[in-house]
């Protein structure tokens, strides 16, 4: 983050400025002061070396902004620069803005932007705003955007090659990639003759309307301009990577054209297949009446906006975590775009201008800034991008509700119903209880709206864009909808009902037949049976997993029970949830992983500190041992659900013997307590641990003596072994589980486990990768656990291999030097499946 330094002749003044700034940033922006000199009798003055110290204390490569009072403060600051390295000098700006206003404005902007020029502009603007306030002039406070990039700066021309162009997600990736560089970067859509846009502004980028085939030009100016252009070029020419491939597939989902309306049927857009019949529950988004009131202090208004945005960010992080647990990471990424909207300099600037120049109150200013942006999206030709307006509205409403203290409306369904709404935002959709929602029907919206994508992910039949004021129907009206054909019937007559019910059954039977085929056990060509299980994030996914052919659950992420709520789930609630999942699984095993959260997932009741390195912080078993009551409650619930089921438990993030022993001790105490209370539980429940920390690998033989099984978590293991953050695109290639170092680690773990007589599973993404399966089989892995959609492909690969072949490939793979070489080897050795989506 950009740091701020206050230089003043007076220590008191410097401290006072610090107080004002901290009040707004809650200490989140690194700020150091250098005030006064070390002479008790004459403390007024400045000291260049103390300024140097202050700068160094907040310095990062993002840069430092120095604000000074007067006279020697300037001279001392300049002198201090002389004693810093050239590289540091290049990232430090001495800012002529007025000390107090400049410091507050700079700090506020530094919370949302790492672009030092932008922060500098904000600080300078503080004086303009003040002048305007006192003189009534209207200052020009435009974001220093793209237009400030010199025209002779290096540039590249590219053709957008992904299907939907620079819509929300690719735009988000584009902006966050651009944001990693210091260079000023601009982008222009040549095919539409647009103005140049600031490449670090999500809205400016998205509203370029860049679609497939459009030619764009990216210009960058600054020290790291070449790297920035290279990174953006890679991103654009690769069609925005795999996440994009996923949405292509999803958006391209073969939805039949809406057929001409049957008699009495309303037609809408088929958004998610399936037939639903039931009473309607109206979901009304009461329009929020935005108050207008005279304001006294624009800074107060601006400060409230910052607080609301901060709270909204927290909500979005929680919602994202919830969506990840319910429908997977890919759909959950929708909320990343919302997070980016919240940081958009263009939007914030628009709100800023309305508050400071037009003296609008914060609610009205925000609403108007959001509306302007919504209008910009609606003006785009591309329907896919027009649909993004809903996302901006959603994000805007979230902040507005927070500003106005309105509790977000949510439907509490008394019984299973069809949710009817004018429109559903992604947030609304993610919060629906899939057990109670039979179907979704909206007046507006489209098949490519994020709400539709979420509905498909949750397996809820949906018809969007029915129009006709369907949301004005009375509660409890019976509705029937056919999501595959986009048809909706109000109060269907009994003949129609019977017909639809039989359709629903035959549809279900058809699904059943498909999955029966998949349910055949996985056998290698030489007849070895391999256990294929599913990773799931909640009860909702169990049926789907079985349908895909899972022979149990190899990883139940229990976070879904803990996220997006204000108190931890009770023992009874947890018991019921585990019970329900285990019941659905019947004779199949269920491995429950105890709570695996850390500083990156905010659980209000755990009061977790924000950590600089959450992946190296208090998480997993570390956290649970720190809050043993949470673990104990969870273990009691797991034990209570165990009788009559094949439940196993495992602990995440174990790195020392002390930890696993402490966890087992809590388990033993819990068992004793249950025994004494006469509560039944499965005495022989297997206890395992995740092997994902290199320390646990090194101790594999000793760890194996403590547990009944290992489960290798390759996602974390890869990033810890390779010391490469898997969310950082610059080192993504390193955290690849195909890296020979990772494969050898896996081999070592399996060897040690088998030597100690315990079995080993693998529950990372690697298990579901058809190329990896060959190697893992050859290494002797006992159990594969993967995301359900991967199961059919993996089974197919297995059926074409013999153990001897797999072992030979694995042995050869371990001798290779690069991840690419391993992939090549598997491909060339006749792996039956290429990585193309089936």
């Amino acid at each position: 983050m950009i740091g701020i330094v206050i230089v003043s002749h007076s220590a008191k003044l410097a401290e006072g400025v610090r107080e004002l700034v901290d009040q707004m940033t809650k200490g989140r922006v690194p700020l150091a002061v250098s005030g006064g000199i070390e002479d008790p009798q004459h403390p007024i003055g400045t000291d260049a070396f103390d300024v140097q110290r202050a700068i160094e204390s907040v310095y990062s490569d993002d840069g430092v902004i120095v604000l000074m009072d007067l006279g020697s403060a300037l001279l001392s600051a300049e002198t201090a620069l002389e004693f810093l390295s050239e590289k540091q000098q290049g990232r430090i700006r001495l800012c002529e803005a007025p000390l107090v206003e400049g410091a507050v404005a700079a700090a506020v902007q530094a919370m949302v932007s790492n672009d030092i020029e932008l922060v500098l502009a904000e600080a300078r603007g503080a004086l303009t705003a003040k002048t305007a306030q006192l003189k009534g002039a209207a200052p020009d406070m435009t974001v220093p955007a793209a237009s400030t990039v010199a025209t002779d700066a290096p540039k590249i021309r590219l053709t957008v090659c992904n299907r939907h162009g620079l819509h929300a997600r690719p735009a988000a990736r584009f902006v966050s990639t651009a944001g990693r560089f210091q260079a000023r970067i601009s982008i222009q859509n040549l095919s539409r003759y647009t103005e140049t846009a600031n490449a670090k502004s999500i809205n400016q980028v998205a509203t370029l309307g860049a679609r497939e085939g459009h030619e764009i030009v990216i210009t960058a100016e600054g020290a790291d301009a070449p790297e920035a252009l290279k990174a953006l070029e890679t991103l654009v020419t690769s069609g925005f990577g795999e996440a994009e491939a996923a949405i292509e597939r999803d958006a391209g989902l073969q939805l039949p054209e809406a057929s001409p309306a049957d008699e009495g049927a309303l037609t809408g857009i088929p958004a998610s297949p399936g037939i639903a019949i039931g009473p309607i529950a109206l979901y009304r988004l009461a329009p929020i009446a935005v108050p207008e009131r005279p304001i006294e202090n624009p800074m107060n208004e601006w400060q409230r906006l910052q607080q609301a945005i901060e709270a909204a960010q927290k909500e979005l992080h929680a919602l994202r975590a919830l969506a990840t647990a319910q429908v997977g990471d890919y759909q959950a990424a929708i909320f990343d775009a919302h997070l980016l909207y919240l940081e958009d300099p263009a939007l914030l600037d628009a709100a800023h201008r309305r508050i400071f120049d037009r003296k609008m109150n914060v609610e009205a200013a925000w609403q108007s800034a959001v509306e302007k942006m919504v209008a910009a999206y609606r003006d785009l030709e591309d329907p896919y991008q027009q649909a993004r307006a809903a996302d901006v509205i959603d994000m805007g409403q979230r902040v507005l509700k927070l500003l106005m203290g309105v509790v977000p409306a949510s439907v509490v369904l008394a019984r299973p119903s069809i949710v009817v709404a004018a429109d559903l935002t992604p947030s609304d959709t993610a919060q629906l209880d899939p057990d109670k929602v039979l179907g979704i029907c909206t007046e507006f919206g489209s098949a490519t709206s994020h709400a539709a994508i979420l509905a498909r992910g949750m397996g809820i039949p949906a018809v969007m864009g029915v129009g006709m004021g369907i949301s004005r129907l009375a509660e409890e009206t019976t509705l029937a909808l056919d999501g595959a054909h986009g048809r909706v019937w109000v109060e269907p007559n009994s003949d129609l009902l019977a017909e639809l019910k039989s359709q629903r059954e035959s549809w279900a039977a058809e699904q059943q037949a498909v999955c029966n085929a998949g349910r055949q056990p996985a056998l290698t060509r030489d007849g070895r049976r391999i256990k294929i299980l599913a990773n799931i994030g909640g009860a909702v996914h169990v049926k789907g997993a079985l349908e895909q052919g899972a022979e149990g659950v190899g990883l139940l992420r229990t976070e879904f029970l803990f996220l997006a709520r204000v108190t931890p789930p009770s023992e009874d609630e947890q018991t019921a949830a585990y019970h329900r999942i285990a019941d659905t699984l019947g004779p199949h095993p269920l491995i429950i992983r105890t709570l695996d959260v850390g500083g990156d997932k905010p659980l209000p009741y755990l009061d977790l500190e924000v950590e600089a390195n959450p992946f190296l912080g208090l998480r997993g078993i570390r956290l649970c041992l720190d809050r043993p009551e949470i673990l104990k409650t969870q273990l009691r619930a797991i034990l209570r659900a165990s009788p009559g089921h094949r439940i196993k438990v495992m602990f995440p993030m174990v790195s020392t013997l002390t930890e696993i022993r402490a966890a087992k001790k809590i388990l033993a105490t819990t068992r004793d307590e249950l025994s004494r209370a006469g509560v039944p539980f499965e005495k022989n429940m297997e206890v395992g641990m995740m092997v994902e920390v290199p320390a646990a690998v090194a101790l594999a033989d000793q760890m194996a003596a403590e547990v009944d099984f290992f489960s290798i978590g390759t996602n974390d293991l890869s990033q810890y072994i390779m010391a490469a953050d898997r969310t950082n695109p610059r080192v993504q290639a390193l955290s690849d589980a195909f890296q020979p170092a990772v494969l050898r680690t896996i081999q070592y773990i399996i060897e040690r486990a088998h030597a100690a007589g315990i079995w080993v599973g693998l529950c990372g993404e690697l298990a579901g990768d058809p190329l990896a399966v060959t190697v893992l089989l050859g290494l002797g892995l006992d159990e594969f656990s993967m995301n359900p959609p991967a199961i059919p492909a993996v089974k197919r690969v297995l059926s074409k291999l013999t153990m001897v072949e797999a072992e030979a490939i694995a042995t050869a793979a371990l001798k290779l030097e690069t991840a690419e070489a391993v992939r090549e080897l598997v491909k060339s050795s006749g792996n039956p499946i290429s990585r193309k989506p089936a």
Partner: protein
Amino acid sequence: MVSQKKLRAWIEVLQKVYAENRQYLIDLDSAIGDADHGINMDRGFTNVQADLSKTDPPDIGAMLKTVAMTLIRTVGGAAGPLYGTFFLRASTACAGKTELQAADVVAMFEAGLAGVLQRGKAELNDKTMVDALSPALVAMKRALGNGSDFRQIIQQGAAAAEEGMKNTIPMLAKKGRASYLGERSIGHQDPGATSSYLLLKTAVDVWG
């Protein structure tokens, strides 16, 4: 010719000079500034004295560097970074030397003045120390060019500094605290020009 010992003596006597003139500089600064120039200079050179007594710098460059660092750290006012930079550049000009010829002394002042100009960005007639230092350098260079002896060179430098100092009286301040006074700064001698004159005058007293 100035040996390292003599240079050190200059600095040591400067401490006494600024201590004796403390009140005088305060009075000058109180007329057009914040009445701290005397305090600042006295504090700075007292600390210089203390720091120098703790070290035994191998050459003149190293010694002047200590002077520079201490002034930057302890003077507190504009004079800190200004004289600090003066001595920092001077120390570079004298790097590795244990004695200075007349031309070296002039080069030292030239480098020092360049530092003050770079740091403070003052121009002639802005009513600052530059109005004393700059004519002093011009006079010294001229004397050096004329083949005057060392004593004459610095004497002429000091005389020019004194004249420059007095010339600041009718000036309108454009830099520093005094600039906030505008017209009211006219009629008073600039404290910084005065401390600069003392710098040269002491050199004459010690070296001459």
